[in-house]
């Protein structure tokens, strides 16, 4: 099983070789960090919580509206490779279980999401120092990172399912944007923990860095969503006759 998994991951890595898809995860957080820091510097009279204020400026729009869509773009790209031409034939006749093939795709999506999150935190630290914040870097940042990553994995699972079922490249991305916007509504009405697109923002504390959340609920719900959406994807791959384009 382990060898099969490694082979699937390696195959996916080869498919993505020299493809500049990671550039989006580099560029969007950079835009958010640049303008967020600028806005923070211009409003230090109002934004007095130093690192916490800067964190909201960096992540509020990025986490709610754009990160789910960005993850959706990556997931769409992963399945587009199979949706184009006759690649489904070679994909489904690979001598590996479909669950392992799916895990190979999921691993790639999770890997780029983790790297994207690390980049967001690196930018946060560097911009904070540039903005002249002298206090210690918040210790909670590690928790934000871990919880945010968990939420990002949930979004990866949802988007992989959507991009698998919907052959279009663009529609799942539109759904991700709409999902992120509805996530804002769900979070403000207290249903964020039960809605997959809100978990990322709640984990990252994008709305309010001082927000208290129940970590156990976040973990249980995230794992639950992951299992459900991954199982649905594997079920679809096994049962549905996918025809090559």
């Amino acid at each position, binding site marked *: 099983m382990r060898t099969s998994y490694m082979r699937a991951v390696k195959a996916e890595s080869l498919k993505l070789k020299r*493809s500049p*898809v990671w*550039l*989006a995860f580099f*560029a*969007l957080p950079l*835009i*958010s960090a640049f*303008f*967020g820091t*600028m*806005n923070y510097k211009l409003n230090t009279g*109002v934004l007095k919580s130093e690192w916490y204020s800067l964190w909201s400026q960096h992540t509020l*729009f*990025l986490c709610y*509206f*754009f990160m789910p*869509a*960005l993850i959706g*773009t990556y997931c*769409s*790209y992963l399945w*587009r490779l199979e949706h*184009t031409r006759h690649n489904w034939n070679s994909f489904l006749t690979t001598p590996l279980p479909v669950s392992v093939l799916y895990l190979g795709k999921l691993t790639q999506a999770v890997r780029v999401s983790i790297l994207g999150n690390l980049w967001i935190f690196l930018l946060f630290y560097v911009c904070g120092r540039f903005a002249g914040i002298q206090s210690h870097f918040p210790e909670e940042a590690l928790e934000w990172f871990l919880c945010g990553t968990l939420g990002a994995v949930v979004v990866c699972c949802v988007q992989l399912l959507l991009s698998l079922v919907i052959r*279009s*490249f*663009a*529609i799942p*991305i*539109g*759904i991700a*944007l*709409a999902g992120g*916007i*509805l996530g804002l*509504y769900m979070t403000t009405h207290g249903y964020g923990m039960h809605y997959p697109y809100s978990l990322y923002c709640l984990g990252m504390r994008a709305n309010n860095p001082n927000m208290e959340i129940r970590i156990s609920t976040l973990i249980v719900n995230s794992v639950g969503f992951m299992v459900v959406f991954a199982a649905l994807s594997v079920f679809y791959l096994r049962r549905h006759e996918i025809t090559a*384009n």
Partner: protein
Amino acid sequence: MITLRTEFKKIKRKKIGLTMCALIGVQFAWLLWSGSRPNESERLQGWIEMLHSLPLISVIMMPTIMSVLASRLADVEHKGNTYKLLHTLRRPGALYHAKVACGTLFILAISIAQFLFIIALGYARGYAGHPDWNYYAAAFALNLACCLSLYLLQLLLSMLFFNQMIPLVAGLGGSMLGLILMYIKMYSFLPWGGFLSAAQAAMDWNPETRIVRFYYREFSPVELCAVAMIFVWIVGFYTAGRILFARKEA
């Protein structure tokens, strides 16, 4: 006309209309949610506030919606690898015009739906008086122009790149840039800032009293230039698209 009809035949069962309805439905849900129980003072300012809320929502969603629309229309050719075949039957220019016209009809339908919805919502909520038709007409025309400029940009990118990730990421980046710019200035010369430049209403928030006041904008010369820039982008993107598409190797 034949090429345009063919364009609609090509997208039959592609559910582009349904996708657009779903995405615009999210905008409507947002408008319904924001200010669902207006008090007396909010009812008095309701019609002006609508003209402030709509550009804000559009700046977040429209670049991505336009990139989805353009990508769906262009992807038909990429997936079928039909450029070479189509170029032998029609001039590349005609094919490009058909794509532009097809997308424009979708945009027109979206804009009409948006404005009908906000007017119906305003009456349903019991906003005082009636909408100021001059401002609403200007907002409608400029909203349409902004969408068209973004669509032409996205169509250009979607036609040029086989990898649809590039235009979609450009759309997302544009949405983000437009949204962030909104917090810096009330106008922008970038294509994604058009909704912001064209907004007919602005907001004045008093931090002391925490009272929000909406008012119709009086455009300064620089702001008028930013509005004019929307039309410059339309002409620029259309010309660039026409030239680059005609030169594109099938």
